């Protein structure tokens, strides 16, 4: 993507942007918008039709920036907001460029009413004061034989009737106009009404009129050149009419333009004659063949004043001394025309004049109608449109209707038909009512101005004097070379393979091998341009091509090639000859972008794809450089590995690879000893359990002593009220039934024997069934052994499963009737209305306190603690007894010990059951308890304890032997 650096801030911008993304300054100039600015060139004016009314003064003081669009004062060159250039660079060349002429014209038109007469330049005041007596003595015209035809044609006396209207305006003003300066009023005297001002002429308010003292300084060079003495004899007749305004009427006073002839009181105005005009008078008196327009102001009676020469620039003084150049250079008319004049160097001024100006001395016929072309502008620096206008060719006015012509061109050539077609500025300066046809010699029949026609004729006329006749000692080198150059016939033939000199341009050298040089051969053959010594072949070729240039048809706007800024090699070849390089002053007129050095397009075509800069080109690559992983560019140093290290690395690699490989697990023979040992243990336990039961009955007698907790439990049960049911909680599973059933059976038996209704429940699903089975079995056993009949629902009842854990226990403790509706067996739909519980339900709001006692059989400490914590506060009046496994005993002893323990009794495991049965008497003894006691003793004392001791002793010995073997091995 190409990058354009901003002219204002210097920062890079993508090429597709129109304005700088940093300072909003315009990056690309509006090349297509050639709108005339206040300083715009007059040649561009024909592109825009003249507007009838001038632009308002308020807008002219403000210039709108092309880049930012903000208003700026007119005196600024660059925008005060974005530093963009407001005016083209042509403003810098006001001394040389035609734009200065425009400014001058602007100044002349600006604020005429405000300009006092005494502020006018001297020369203008002189024109105003003494139109009748020309202060300048113009040289006499030379014989017609020595004058070119186009000059001779113009040397005819000019009658006032032939004077164009705008020149007629130079006549003395009959009455002072309100809005025009005096000098302009004088020029507009015959004018009935002021003509509208053309649009291309900027409003007068922009540039105030300069004071009279500075008139010379602000005077454009080309006009100063015109003020210099001209060789009267060489004055061409093709001088435009408006140029005659500064000339004294010729002896044929009738031919003097009206505005010239209107200059009153020449004698009185002699002192007001500007110095430069006086300087022009001196050589004019000596010039025998001064043209008419020059001879008019050159009055012989007015001598040249030496003192005035000091005010005249040196270069201007030297103009009369220049020698006329032969008009061999037919490519352009205006530079050639001075060459055609006879050199008549004044003795008083020729020494100070530069050589090149001396060569221009006879250029009295310099077309002032083209004020934007300075007289000193060389031929090569002439713009294209000027070349085309001055090139010989067919009269363009015939081919182009006057209506198609631009105004300024129409006024030059075709404006003779109607005053309306004249530009406004010309109408204002001339007599608007004067018919154009009355101009005899100044306007050709075809509508082309005489001076233009003369230029064309001089360019195409082969009879122009040769340059060799001109004493060109003081001429510039390039002009001298042109004068002394031989004609085309004497030039060496131009061929494609010709050897170019060393000083030839590079572009010409580049053409040598491309065949383009051959094209120059044809053009050079037809050209009459002499080849100069200094210019070399390329200049002659250029002149040849210029000679072939067709004149610009009048009425057609000059076309500006878009390739002006391109190097010569890149420009299109016109007629086989390449265009010449633009002169510096013309190149400076080009827009900024064209003039600016083209930046090389950056080769970076990277386009950002992420982030806020996505889609933009030419940005720094943030993601590829920072975010995306990439290979490190750090150079890794090569390790220096020795042979030993390599060998060791190989060994390590072999070890690692061997370890990775799967190894087949070695088949282990099943360890027989552990299996035998295991079976021996099982066998020993079986023997130990069975031996006391079958081989040694009475080996483990029932305990003869009773623990205090067991005794307290027995006493508590024994003290329970018989009229209140006792709540027995079976919170254990069948796995713990072997240890707890003896205690549970002894307690239930004791309760039933005492005639206490037993109400069973469980917080475990299996405990309810287990309790129901146990109570049923005890009742059956008692009915058998004691011949008591215990009925379900009357003597005992099972409530079933109490869900909810601690919450259920708490709810049941506070309100038992809400916890159960029916019994576990489902026999009684209303369990609280059964015979077993009717006594409780009769009491309003009964709780656990209404039970006679609470017996909790728990295999785990949590179940026992739940009942202790949740039910005891609601059953403070009901004593609580716990029957637990031997392993839970240490955790419940704290609740059973103390002065007022929560547990009024604690029965622990099988020993507690045995103690309880022993305490209860022979009637409570249960065979299962004695058998369990015996088997328990046999298994623990005869089985587990010996195995524990012997096994660990043997294991310790074996372990020590292995350690010794390991130490020995």
């Amino acid at each position, binding site marked *: 993507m190409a990058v354009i650096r901003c002219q204002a801030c210097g920062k890079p911008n993508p090429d597709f942007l129109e304005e700088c993304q940093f300072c909003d300054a315009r990056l690309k100039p509006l090349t297509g918008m050639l709108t005339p600015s206040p300083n715009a060139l007059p040649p561009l004016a024909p592109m825009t039709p003249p507007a009838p009314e001038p632009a308002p003064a308020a807008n002219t003081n403000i210039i709108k920036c092309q880049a930012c669009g903000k208003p700026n004062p007119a005196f600024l060159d660059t925008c005060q907001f974005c530093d963009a250039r407001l005016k083209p660079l042509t403003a810098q060349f006001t001394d040389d460029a035609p734009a200065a002429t425009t400014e001058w014209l602007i100044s002349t038109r600006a604020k005429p009413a405000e300009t006092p007469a005494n502020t006018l330049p001297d020369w203008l005041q002189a024109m105003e004061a003494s139109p009748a007596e020309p202060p300048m003595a113009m040289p006499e015209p030379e014989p017609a034989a020595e004058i070119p035809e186009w000059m001779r044609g113009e040397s005819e006396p000019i009658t006032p009737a032939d004077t164009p209207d705008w020149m007629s305006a130079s006549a003395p003003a009959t009455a002072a106009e309100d809005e025009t300066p005096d000098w302009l009023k004088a020029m507009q005297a015959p004018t009935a009404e002021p003509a509208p001002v053309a649009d291309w002429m900027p409003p007068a308010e922009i540039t105030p009129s300069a004071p009279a003292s500075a008139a010379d300084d602000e005077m454009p060079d080309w006009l100063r050149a015109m003020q210099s003495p001209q060789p009267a004899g060489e004055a061409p007749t093709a001088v435009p009419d408006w140029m005659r305004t500064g000339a004294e009427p010729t002896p044929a006073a009738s031919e003097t333009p009206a505005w010239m002839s209107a200059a009153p009181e020449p004698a009185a105005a002699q002192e007001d004659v500007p110095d430069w005009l006086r300087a022009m008078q001196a050589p004019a008196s000596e010039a025998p063949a001064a043209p008419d327009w020059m001879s008019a102001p050159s009055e012989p009676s007015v001598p040249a004043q030496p003192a005035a020469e000091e005010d005249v620039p040196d270069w201007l003084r030297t103009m009369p001394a220049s020698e006329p150049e032969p008009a061999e250079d037919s490519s352009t008319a205006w530079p050639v025309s001075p060459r055609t004049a006879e050199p008549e160097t004044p003795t008083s001024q020729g020494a100070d004049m530069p050589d090149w100006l001396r060569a221009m001395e006879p250029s009295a016929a310099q077309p002032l109608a083209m004020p934007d072309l300075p007289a000193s502008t060389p031929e090569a620096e002439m713009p294209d449109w000027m070349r085309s206008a001055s090139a010989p060719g067919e009269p363009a006015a015939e081919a182009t209707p006057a209506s198609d012509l631009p105004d300024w061109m129409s006024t030059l050539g075709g404006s003779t038909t109607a005053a309306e077609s004249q530009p406004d500025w010309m109408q204002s300066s001339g007599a608007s009512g004067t018919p154009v046809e009355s101009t005899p010699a100044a306007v050709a029949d075809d509508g082309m101005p005489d001076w233009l026609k003369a230029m064309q004729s001089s360019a195409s006329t082969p009879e122009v004097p040769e340059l060799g006749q001109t004493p060109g000692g003081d001429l510039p080198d390039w002009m001298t070379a042109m004068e002394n150059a031989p004609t085309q016939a004497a030039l060496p033939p131009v061929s494609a393979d010709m050897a170019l000199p060393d000083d030839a341009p590079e572009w010409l050298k580049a053409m040598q091998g491309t065949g383009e040089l051959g094209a120059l051969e044809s053009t050079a053959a037809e050209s009459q341009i002499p080849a100069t010594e200094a210019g070399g072949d390329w200049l002659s070729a250029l002149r040849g091509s210029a000679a072939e240039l067709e004149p610009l048809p009048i009425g057609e706007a000059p076309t500006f090639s878009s390739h002006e800024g391109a190097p010569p090699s890149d420009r299109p070849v016109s007629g086989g000859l390449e265009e010449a390089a633009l002169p510096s002053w013309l190149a400076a007129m080009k827009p900024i972008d064209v003039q600016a050095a083209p930046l090389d397009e950056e080769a970076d075509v990277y386009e950002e794809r992420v982030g806020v800069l996505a889609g933009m080109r030419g940005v720094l690559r943030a993601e590829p450089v920072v975010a995306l992983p990439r290979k490190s560019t750090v150079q890794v140093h090569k390790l220096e590995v020795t042979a030993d290290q390599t060998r060791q690395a190989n060994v390590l690699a072999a070890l690692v690879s061997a370890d990775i490989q799967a190894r087949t697990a070695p088949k282990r023979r099943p360890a027989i000893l552990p299996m035998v040992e295991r079976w021996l243990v*099982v066998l020993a336990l079986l023997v130990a359990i069975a031996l006391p039961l079958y081989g040694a009955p009475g080996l483990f007698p029932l305990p003869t002593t009773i623990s205090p907790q067991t005794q307290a439990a027995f006493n508590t049960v024994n003290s329970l009220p018989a009229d209140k049911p006792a709540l027995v909680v079976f919170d254990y599973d069948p*796995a713990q039934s072997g240890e707890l059933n003896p205690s549970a059976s002894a307690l239930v038996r004791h309760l039933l024997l005492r005639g206490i209704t037993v109400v069973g429940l469980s917080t475990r699903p299996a405990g309810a*069934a*287990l309790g129901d089975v146990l109570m049923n079995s005890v009742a059956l056993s008692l009915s058998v052994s004691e011949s008591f009949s215990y009925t379900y629902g009357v003597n005992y009842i099972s409530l079933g*499963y109490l*869900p*909810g854990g601690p919450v259920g226990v708490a709810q049941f403790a506070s309100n038992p009737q809400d916890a159960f509706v029916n019994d576990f067996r489902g026999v009684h739909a209303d369990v609280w209305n059964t015979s077993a519980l009717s006594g409780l339900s009769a009491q309003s709001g009964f709780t656990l306190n209404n039970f006679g006692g609470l017996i909790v059989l728990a295999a785990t400490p949590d179940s026992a603690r739940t009942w202790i914590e949740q039910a005891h506060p609601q059953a403070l009046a009901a004593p609580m007894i716990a029957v637990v496994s031997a392993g839970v005993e*240490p955790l419940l002893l704290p609740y059973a010990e103390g002065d007022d323990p929560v547990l009024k009794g604690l029965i622990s495991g099988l020993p507690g059951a045995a103690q309880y049965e022993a305490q209860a008497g022979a009637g409570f003894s249960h065979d299962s308890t004695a058998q369990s006691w015996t088997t328990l003793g046999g298994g623990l004392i005869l089985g587990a304890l010996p195995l*524990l001791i012997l096994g660990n002793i043997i294991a310790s010995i074996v372990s020590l032997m292995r350690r010794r073997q390991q130490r020995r091995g």
Partner: protein
Amino acid sequence: MKLTKLVATLIAVGTGWIVLLGYFLPEVELFKSANQSLLGIASQLAAVVVLVGAINLFLVHTKKLTGNTPGWFYSLFVLFGLVAVILLNVVAPFVAPFLPADVVLGVGPASNANLFIFKYIQSAAGAAIAGLIFFFLVLAGYRVLGRRMTLATFAFVVSGAITLLALAPWPTFLPNPEVYDNTTLRDLLRTLTLIPSIAGARGLLLGIALGVVATGLRVLLAQDRPYRE
């Protein structure tokens, strides 16, 4: 805090304070009735939880059976017992007229069929598992020093032996001499066994009590929200 969590916290804290006030202020009928109502709801929910647990057990073992995961064969037995008990309790009332007169299946959880299953299957299986525990404990004690002979293992073996001697039925062939002032050897061994165990148990109970109080306060003060998850 989201609204749902706020509502849950308010419910938990409010319920806790109401139940707590019902405990401390039972004479206030409002707190007492509220306490009873909340406890009743919790108890019924616990019953539903049992049903949900049974359904979950059925689904888990069904998944194991259909997925041929390891142990699917045992899941088959579990499912068979579950389905059999349910069918037995559901079908029993309908098949009772067709059974002999001496065969009474009964109705409800305490029916003869359920008691038969409980007595001859569930209780027997539970006792057998407890017996296996005894066997594995003896075998482990037998191999303790063979696996690792350290001071801890040695102390474990010694304490085990003493406990067996102290709690097990004392055989007749073992002398039980009087050691000190009507204190026999067995009493001494029992004391040596119970003192450390009871001391440890009391400490454990104190710790549990403190933990319960702290946890209760945290829940009541909404500092701990186990219902949040």
